[in-house]
């Protein structure tokens, strides 16, 4: 992979992509988390993110509205805050080989498929296998069946998603970026599953 492969691993010594706001020592109260989105093109990856970021709109926060990079901070009940830095990836087949550049050092991977497209479910399974082989060993993975509002067009049964996620130790949820169903739940659940740096 050109110049990047021979370089020192930036995240070594840190907790798999987790680090604090000031770039210094890990801060148990304010986590900064690199989250990578994987999935076939057209499954609604960017819609999920936009819904998440816009849905919790906070006029005081400086949200960068990029097309493919967005960040959003959520507060948990234990007064911890988690800032998600969301890295979208191009889902077209021709860019599949580039994905490792993006998920390297990610603390979270969200693998998305479209419940109306069995092909996208197959593709999601491919990504899960890839991540198991090449991702950080302590990466938190979520499997997301999107477009849950299109029940009448469903082709991937809920149970298939549940079973596959369970077999692979992943968190599973079905969402609808259109109706905002389960979008916040997805990110809150991820936040809860993050490994915490031990307070020093």
């Amino acid at each position: 992979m050109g110049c990047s492969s021979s370089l020192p691993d930036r995240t070594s010594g840190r907790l798999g992509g987790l680090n604090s706001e000031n770039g210094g020592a890990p801060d148990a109260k304010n986590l900064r988390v690199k989250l990578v989105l994987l999935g076939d093109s057209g499954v609604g990856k960017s819609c999920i993110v936009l819904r998440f970021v816009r849905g919790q709109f906070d006029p005081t926060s400086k949200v960068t509205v990029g097309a493919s990079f967005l960040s959003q901070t959520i507060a948990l009940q234990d007064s911890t805050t988690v800032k998600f830095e969301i890295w979208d990836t191009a889902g077209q087949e021709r860019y599949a080989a580039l994905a490792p550049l993006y998920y390297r050092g990610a603390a979270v991977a969200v693998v998305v498929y479209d419940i109306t497209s069995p092909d996208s479910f197959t593709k999601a399974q491919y990504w899960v296998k890839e991540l198991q082989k090449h991702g950080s060993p302590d990466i938190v993975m979520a499997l997301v069946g999107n477009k849950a509002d299109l029940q009448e067009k469903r082709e991937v049964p809920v149970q298939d998603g549940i079973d596959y996620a369970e077999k692979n130790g992943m968190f599973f949820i079905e969402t609808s970026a259109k109706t905002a169903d389960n979008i916040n739940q997805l990110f809150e659940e991820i936040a809860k599953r993050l490994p915490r740096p031990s307070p020093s």
Partner: protein
Amino acid sequence: MIFSIECEILLRLISLNPLKGYVILNAAKLFFCSFIVSFSFHTVNPENDGRRLQEFLLNMEAAIRDHPLWAGATEEEVDCAMEGLEKYVMTKLFSRTFASFAEDAKIDQEILEKISLLQNFLRPEHLDIPAVFNNNASWLLAEKELQKINAFKAPREKLLCILNCCRVINNLLLNSSMSENRVPGADDFLPVLIYVMIKANPPQLHSNLKFIQLYRRQAKLVSEAAYYFTNLVSAKSFIVDLDGKSLSIDETEFHDSMQAARLVIKETRIKTPPALDKPADLPVPSRRLHNKGGSNYPFMEAEAGELTVGDVERLLSLYKDVVNNYTNLCRAIGHPPLSKLQPSFPHSEETNVLLEQPEEIMKTDHKAVE
């Protein structure tokens, strides 16, 4: 004193607070000395150099925070000092650290050549870029940002060129999507970036990316900057591995187009030497091609006033290349080098037409740019 204080940021720091600036400058000089000393003992090893610079910057940051003179300094002040330090040290070490590894220069050249071939036939639809994003004005703006990368020596500034390019693309995607009621994401961003990269053919692409990755302060190559930087690395990697299967194009057509592009480039190379002898104000075929190809000849559109002392080195090496190529070509075709002002080899019809109708060329030129 071996080292002159020429870095503007340090000067500014020093003028803000002479003592603070002095502390930093001294440390920078010490590091510089140790770097240069070890340099004379070791062969070039970019990864090691990068690690050492990162360590130095981390230590310096810690030292600044602990120093009594900096007690009570705000985060911004410390950050500004660190940016100044990075720029100062890297400007000093530029010739040692940038594209100094023969292997890297070779990769740069290979990428440059591959892109020049692709430029000849690649169209947005080959990357399935939706027509709604076809906006030549925005693309050109993004290309220009990318092509500026060699105008800077500091890693921060080189990275800024990349971020600006991505910002232009993002604006285009967001504006074009608004009417379409769609949400642009990486599925749209990456293909456009790849297309812009091919159109721009930025100079020393591989070396520039490697330089930023190794020498930009690690605390600064995170988050959004890291994301867009990764996209550039990824686009470069796509281009390096690009073959008939990577595009929406028939594989035979791809190979034929590449072959045809090779011929076109070979032909223009032969046509180029006499053009060099012509008076500069005459639009000649080579110039037309250069403007189209853009970055192959980064100084083509530069004004004398824009050049910096740092450009002299590159200009000189480019000049030597040109002279060598010219001499070799002249020898190859049995024509004495540096001869008369008029081109004397047989022209293809196209060349003659171009030479006779300068205005026509200008028009085509503009079209290519628009």
